[in-house]
């Protein structure tokens, strides 16, 4: 148990230092919230949009978090592959799942910076209009969002561990999930089939949980339901990641094709 904790702690520490030093990560963390928050603010400002404040803050913050996590989490696999360190990682006594989970946790913690930037920037843009009605619930919902999207990112990293398309996919996958994630506009404006896909994503439930904390009305059972769905989706993706990572480790040890995928 102590060894596991040490692995997680040291992986998070090293990974945070390495990741923060990469210009691409700094760019995603800083520019993405700025661009999306400015655009949502300018587009929604004069329109009669419900949850205007929430969409400005969350559009900037959550898209920054999601972009940082996808860029970095999928990019991490690519980097390990380029450095030739995937096989040593597999051969080490620590499981791949643990190492990647720690890396993704580090990315999630760093991506909070995006939310911080989005909040400060929105405060400047919106002035006295800026208010988070349920501060404590917001913090809890943010924790749930990070947990569930991290579990989802872990699943994605598993898929791309065996693929050479990681570099392309890490660039591609960001935009579709921004569309169906409900970060800058509600998923209810999407066609039915897109809403059905969106319902499978923790990002959608996490976004909604966060958005409801901006509503001055007391938290309803609906909030608890979507918060529960965020948690549930996170647990499901974590379970899937754990199961398939073990299967994958066994398979690549048997076939010896981790570098050859």
């Amino acid at each position, binding site marked *: 148990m102590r060894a596991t904790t040490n692995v997680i702690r040291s992986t998070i520490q090293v990974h945070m230092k390495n990741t923060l030093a990469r*210009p691409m990560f700094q760019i995603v963390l800083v*520019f993405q919230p700025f661009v999306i928050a400015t*655009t949502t603010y*300018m587009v929604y400002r004069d329109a009669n949009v419900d949850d205007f404040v929430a969409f400005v803050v969350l559009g900037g913050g959550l898209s920054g978090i999601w972009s940082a996590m996808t860029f970095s989490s999928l990019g991490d696999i690519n980097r390990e592959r380029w450095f030739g360190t995937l096989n040593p990682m597999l051969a080490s006594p620590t499981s791949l799942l643990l190492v990647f989970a720690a890396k993704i946790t580090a990315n999630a913690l760093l991506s909070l910076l995006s939310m911080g930037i989005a909040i400060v920037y929105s405060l400047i843009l919106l002035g006295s209009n800026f208010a988070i009605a349920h501060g404590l619930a917001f913090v809890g919902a943010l924790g749930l969002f990070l947990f569930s999207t991290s579990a989802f990112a872990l699943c994605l990293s598993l898929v791309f561990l065996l693929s050479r398309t990681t570099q392309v996919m890490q660039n591609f996958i960001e*935009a579709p999930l921004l569309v169906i994630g409900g970060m800058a506009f509600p998923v209810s404006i999407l066609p039915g089939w897109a809403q059905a896909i969106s319902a499978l994503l923790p990002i959608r439930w996490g976004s909604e949980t966060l958005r409801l904390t901006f509503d001055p009305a007391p938290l309803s059972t609906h909030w608890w339901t979507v918060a529960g769905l965020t948690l549930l989706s996170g647990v499901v993706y974590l379970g899937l990641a754990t199961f398939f990572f073990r299967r994958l480790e066994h398979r690549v040890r048997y076939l010896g094709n981790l570098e050859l995928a």
Partner: protein
Amino acid sequence: MMRGRIVIFRNDLRLFGRQSLFSYRALVSWLNPRDYVLMRVLEPAFQIIFFALLGDFAGRPTSYFVVGNAVRLASVSGIYGCATVMGSERRSGTLQAIIASATPAWQTFIARSTMQIVDGLAPVIIGFALGGLFFDVDFGQVNWFWLAAALLVTSAAMSALGTSIGALGLIGTDINMVMNFVYAVLMVLCGVNFPVNQLPGAVQVISQLLPLTHGLQAVRHIFDGSLADVPGLIAVEAGIGATYLVAGYTAFRVAEHKARVLGTLDLV
């Protein structure tokens, strides 16, 4: 004598074209057709859809967002493609050979950037097609000649900006940061998703100095069928592009001179 010059000119032009084509093929050689579709068709399409839905939710015409983002996506090739050409030569260890060769290095890089102007138009065409099929983009009043001219000039102006960023990189600036910063700035300040006049006054001045602002304005006029201001806007866009090209050329000559005197081109 005259005939001889024509032959030399035609040969130069042929070499220029081959240089552009080979450079482009080298740049995208890692892409297979599936990856190309993902990166150059679907990814831009989803970006356009994202902003179109954002506009739709605000009750605004989605055509404004589709057209704005389709034209803006030309900057991906223009900025990233052109800015990285010089840096990638340095990484490959071939920059000194290019500088030392008989062909002027600047001419080589311009040739390599040319294909990016054409490639930059791919997401624009995809965006327009998407807009016509699924959103409310109306081509009824479009004058195709002026549309082609506006898009070509806008793409060229953004490529000029990308080339000048690449030249700055030779002097020692981290172009990765600059490229992405410029890309974000173009997205916010050039009237892509909201009119430039919604920005604070001082920021509007910056908008007027950037490529894309006038080119995009011309494209919007062309879609509205009001062509009176279009030639002027295209001329301004071309002027802005030319200015960035001159700035890039100056930065490149400074870097080249510094490199010849100090022998540090690969060391900055």
